């Protein structure tokens, strides 16, 4: 059963506009969330994270929002750049998990059109 879901397999955005990638989770015990970016033939690279004590974390053009009541998080990229074109995975972890197990979504492929 998929505990972390990314319901949009793909997204296209014009350069300079905002990209919004969404992620939903089912386990209310999750308390730490991360976004990873993945280029073809490379491993995922860490992008940004947020803990459940916050509802927003910002790093340059990237902002992650967390809505605990809705069990929803989103990644905003503004302004979007062609180099942002990649697959984005969200991941979640919680204190009930031993071994720091992360649950990943299926990814959203973002294409930024020049």
């Amino acid at each position, binding site marked *: 059963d*998929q505990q*972390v879901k*990314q319901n949009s397999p793909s997204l296209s955005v014009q350069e300079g506009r905002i990209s919004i990638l969404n992620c939903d989770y089912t386990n209310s015990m999750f308390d*730490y969330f*991360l976004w*990873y970016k993945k280029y073809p*033939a*490379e*491993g*995922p*690279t*860490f992008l940004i*994270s947020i*803990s459940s004590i916050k509802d927003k974390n910002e790093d340059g053009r990237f902002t992650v929002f967390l809505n605990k009541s809705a069990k929803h998080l989103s990644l905003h990229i503004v302004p979007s750049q062609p180099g942002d074109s990649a697959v984005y*995975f969200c*991941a979640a*972890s919680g*204190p009930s*998990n*031993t*071994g*720091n*197990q*992360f*649950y*990943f*979504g*299926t*990814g959203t492929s973002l294409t930024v059109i020049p």
Partner: protein
Amino acid sequence: GAGVSQSPSNKVTEKGKDVELRCDPISGHTALYWYRQSLGQGLEFLIYFQGNSAPDKSGLPSDRFSAERTGGSVSTLTIQRTQQEDSAVYLCASSHLPSRFSQATYEQYFGPGTRLTVT
């Protein structure tokens, strides 16, 4: 310094053969993780090492899968009697020992993966 490396980058094997995948984590990283990504699927957790011990093997799909880590460094994932459904990209990641008190320790650094194809 060097990142996480994995070998081989690609492996094609016949159904029923055994394969061994290798991961070299970042030096000093105590935690090591194996994931796999099948076509159209998200990253699936397989196993986690803390040093040389594996406190969490819950993700291993079957008893054909095993993993070990020696010297707190290199890890090998072995798949015996491979099946076509084992075809996937196998990713290794390493991090400092997870701590609830330091956000930085949660960052996992991934290798480029091994693409396994079972024919």
